[in-house]
């Protein structure tokens, strides 16, 4: 939490005043038993009706003032906690925007999303409760004890004894059950995953006639869960009876000692009543405190996870150059190796390659052969461990990342679109593109029928492009990459959902686009790359072939294998 404290700046006033007003309210509450004592001793004892009336009006007045205090406190703490968390969320979002691809890989997007949603709201709740209650409960507990001491030291000793005992019970039960709750959670996760497995593997389970075995397994896990739940339940069920006994026994002792003191003339009847009332106040506050501590410890854990994320140093390249050095060679790689964080084997090793403006380069290979790794080096998404990657003569890490990426149009493997109109989505490639330019890109990407079918550029795309088929999405993402009329175009397995005819038409259209550009086509299909100017064949992170289709067919066994499996036997008539 301390690491996040700077986001509280600007809410200092609220975070101090909130608890302060709360304490004022609590002090008023502590005075109530004294007033009741006065009513009994002076009012009833002295048969002073006007006094009773005055005191009761005072009670109402104090309630009113307490209400005002407490409303003020609630407002300040709500304002501080909401403001604080809004800032933290914005800082988190901005941190994530600054991260590099490797950072994102390492963190995992799921984790980041949890930090910004569940963790952030837990912190908000925790801070709000802390400001409102953390000081209040101990204040009331100890305040009650101190008030008891001012009434009668001997009786107050009961308070001094019972408070630690009560705390022991309340916090002891909390500490014992906390790990047990975790094991309940684990067991629940167990039956959850069995259920999910059985839905996802329904066909296999039935094909192998495993239904009864699965039922048995589930009911065993379910039994275990029930057992653990009952065990936690038994212990939690001790809380109320134990605290009840402690408090009430303490009250009995109070009355007993009180009786003796009154008989000796050291105490009055009203004062005994006041002591009794103070004792009653303690229990409620201790239980509140225990619950509060659970929420706060959860919030603290969330806060430290958030702080961890905020403290990450981005590994994004920090270059500033916006000037290419030459326009003769679009891309040049020499002796490039890449190793992902934590991987034993390099993902790419000793790759050299050059591409001239206007050339089309095909990159082919199986899954995990390093195709995507290779093309991700061009926009400096990942750094090369060794070797050089130059775009238009300049090392990619020297470029300002935004400038470099502005020159490149990329169509990633996963065809993702965002919620918004088709126009909004396509303009990601170039914010100021006119409708004509958009339609030009759409036509090239073979997506005209998609846009027409949806009702034009203003048609809305749902989150993740749900309302489009895989092939439709893919064509629109290709169009998006084309909109900026980029000097380098990268199609990373971008046509996998397209049928062969559309794929071919797409390649033709890209070739005929105006302007000169270098195109990289990554694919597993031989048919997609066989007409490229150069084909790079990757296998297991290494270049095993580099050249044109015909020569590769002769001297690159991996390329031949791929070609033959796709075009049927050695006698394929392609």
């Amino acid at each position: 939490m301390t690491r996040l404290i700077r986001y509280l700046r600007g809410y200092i006033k609220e975070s101090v005043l909130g608890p302060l007003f709360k304490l004022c309210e609590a002090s008023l509450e502590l005075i109530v038993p004294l007033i009741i004592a006065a009513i009994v001793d002076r009012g009833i004892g002295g048969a002073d009706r006007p006094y009773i009336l005055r005191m009761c009006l005072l009670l109402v007045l104090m309630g009113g003032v307490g209400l005002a205090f407490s409303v003020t406190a609630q407002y300040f703490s709500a304002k501080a906690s909401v403001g604080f968390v809004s800032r933290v969320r914005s800082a988190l979002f901005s941190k994530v925007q600054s991260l590099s691809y490797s950072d994102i890989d390492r963190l995992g997007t799921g984790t980041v999303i949890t930090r910004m949603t569940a963790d952030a709201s837990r912190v908000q709740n925790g801070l709000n409760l802390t400001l409102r209650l953390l000081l209040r409960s101990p204040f009331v507990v100890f305040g009650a004890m101190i008030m008891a001491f001012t009434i009668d030291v001997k009786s107050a000793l009961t308070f001094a004894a019972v408070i630690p005992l009560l705390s022991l019970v309340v916090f002891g039960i909390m500490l014992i059950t906390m790990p047990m709750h975790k094991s309940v959670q684990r067991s629940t996760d167990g039956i959850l995953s069995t259920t999910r497995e059985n839905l996802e593997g329904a066909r296999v389970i039935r094909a192998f006639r495993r239904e009864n075995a699965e039922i048995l397994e589930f009911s065993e896990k379910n039994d275990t869960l029930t057992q653990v739940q009952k065990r936690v339940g038994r212990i939690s069920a001790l809380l109320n009876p134990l605290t009840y006994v402690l408090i009430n026994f303490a009250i009995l002792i109070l009355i007993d000692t009180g009786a003796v003191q009154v008989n000796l003339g050291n105490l009055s009847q009203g004062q005994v009543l006041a002591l009794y009332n103070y004792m009653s106040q303690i229990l409620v506050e201790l239980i509140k405190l225990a619950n509060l501590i659970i929420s706060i410890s959860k919030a603290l854990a969330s806060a430290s996870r958030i702080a961890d994320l905020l403290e990450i140093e981005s590994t994004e390249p920090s270059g500033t150059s916006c000037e290419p050095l030459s326009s003769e060679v679009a891309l040049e790689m020499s002796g490039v190796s890449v190793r992902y964080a934590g991987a034993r084997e390099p993902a790419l090793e000793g790759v050299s390659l050059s591409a001239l403006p206007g050339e089309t380069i095909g990159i082919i290979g199986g899954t995990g052969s390093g195709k995507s790794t290779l093309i991700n080096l061009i926009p400096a998404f990942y750094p090369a461990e060794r070797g050089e990657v130059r775009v238009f003569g300049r090392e990619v890490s020297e470029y300002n990342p935004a400038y470099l990426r502005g020159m490149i149009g990329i169509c990633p493997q996963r065809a993702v679109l965002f919620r918004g109109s088709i126009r909004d989505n396509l303009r990601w490639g170039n914010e100021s593109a006119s409708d004509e330019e958009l339609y030009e890109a759409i036509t090239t990407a073979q997506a005209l029928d998609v846009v027409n079918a949806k009702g034009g550029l203003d048609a809305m795309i749902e989150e993740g492009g749900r309302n489009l088929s895989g092939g439709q999405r893919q064509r629109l993402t290709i169009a998006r990459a084309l909109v900026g009329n980029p000097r380098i175009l990268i199609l990373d397995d971008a046509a996998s959902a397209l049928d062969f005819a559309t794929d071919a038409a797409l390649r033709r259209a890209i070739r005929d686009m105006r302007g000169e550009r270098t195109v990289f086509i990554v694919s597993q299909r031989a048919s997609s790359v066989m007409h490229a100017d150069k084909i790079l064949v990757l296998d297991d992170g290494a270049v095993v072939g580099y050249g044109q289709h015909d020569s590769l067919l002769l001297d690159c066994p991996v390329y031949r294998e791929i070609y033959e499996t796709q075009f049927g036997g050695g006698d394929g008539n392609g």
Partner: protein
Amino acid sequence: MAKGNTKSGTLKRALCYIGKYKLLLPVTALFAILTVALTLYIPVLVGDALDLIIGEGLVDLGGVLKILSLAAILIGLTALFQWIMSTINNRITFHVVRDIRNDAFRKLESLPLSYVDSHPSGEVVNRIINDAEQLADGLLLGFTQLLTGVLTIVGTLGIMLYLNWIVALVVFILTPMSLFIAKFIASRTYNMFRMRAESEAAATSYIGEIIGNQKIVKAFCRENEAQEEFDALNDRLGAHSLRAIFFSSLTNPVTRFVNSVVYAAVALFGAIMAVSNPLKEGGIVALISVGELAALLSYANQYTKPFNEISGVVTEFQNALACAARILELIDEEPEIPDAPDAVELSVREGNVSLRDVSFSYTPDRPLIEGLSVDALSGQRVAIVGPTGCGKTTLINLLMRFYDVTGGSILVDGEDIRGVTRRSLRQGYGMVLQETWLSPASIKENIRLGRPEATDEEVISAAKAAHAHSFIKRLKDGYDTLVGEGGEELSAGQRQLICIARVMLSLPPMLILDEATSSIDTRTEIKIQRAFAKMMEGRTTFVVAHRLSTIMDADLILVMRDGNIVEMGRHGELLERGGFYSSLYNSQFAH
């Protein structure tokens, strides 16, 4: 079909589950009554004791001690009863939920696959896990707080009336005020919470969309635009949260204020009446003693608590009922048509499969397959080809009887598959699907899935035949390596090899293979192809074919498009025909 849609229906069904523990119900009710009665009686005793402590030299110490000892015993008993009651309630709740979950899971295993296919798995999981959980919470609260809450209110009123009817009346009239106010605030804040929920959902889905695709955002340098948009959503969420949190947090202080008014009123009326003490103003009947006033004050303090609790419980209970309805709906779901009572065990001799005039559709208004007749003779290879999403898996669904044909029939060795048990039919097929599902267990157990009695040697030789042995033995724990959720991460290709080994081990007379290898590297692909080829020898095989080599060697090619079989024949014939197949085939070579 049993419909549990109405509220009372759901309640009745839920009660059936509780019925199993009906002997415990009167016990817990008894303990609830005892606990409440004793809890309410203690303040009276304390008040009695206070009355004996009048002033200097006026204390009846013996009397006080007597009352206090009685109170001590009763306090001990109360605690004991309370604990027993909670333990019983825990037991009933957790057992009921366990039983419901077991039933739901059992139903899951007998549901038709159409149900599994048409319901997102998250939704079903949610019913069995979360809904059951919330049902448990609701039941537990209902048991522990509903009965005791009602009893406490009734009891408190009764005792207050007994002690002093005027004060009781004051409390009775004033306390509903706090309920009204709480309700008023809740209804006012409902809108604020709805707005907050909306802006929260907007922010969350934006986070999911952008952060989930952060790489694309970066690829297009949209970081600043995204931040701007997020900040706008975030500010809106902040503003809505502040209002919702602040206004809803008013409930407590305001009800506390009402309570303090009630408290002051009780003190006022009580004290005024206590002043009219016969000892001091001779002749007038004693209206109230100080001890009684103390008891009344403590009741006034506690009286509103069960009200608030009960209204909480009622909401919780309604939620629990809704959850129960969802999970019961699953339990009441129509199961798969059971095997015919006279179903025989199919023993496949030849493996001749014939489809006679088969029609099928997932939904009645969209006919899919109509009048399809195909004969696959023993040992033949039938290839199913077509573009993605053309319904190739539909045919597999019918062969394995995951779905039943809507017209015509499917025969295996002359036997209608609806006349044989599903188990024996499925035993006749070996299946390797695109979705390479592995059970969360060791590799060995996964390979043994089809033949649990196989020896280790048999498992290993099956793995060798599937070209899986070499990678398995290189794993840390070899054949004992755990796979599936939470286990070793295997590549799609490795998983598929294990699935093939699984079929290799049981070697059934008929095969269903899905060749889809888009996620498998070339090397593994070749291995898999070899393994497939070996398996297919002498077996009737249905292949969802992606490779030309498979297609060209097939004895029969079924060409599918939009769910229909549009062409059927051998490779050469189909090419000559110049139809869909030939255009599909030729498009591969388009420049």
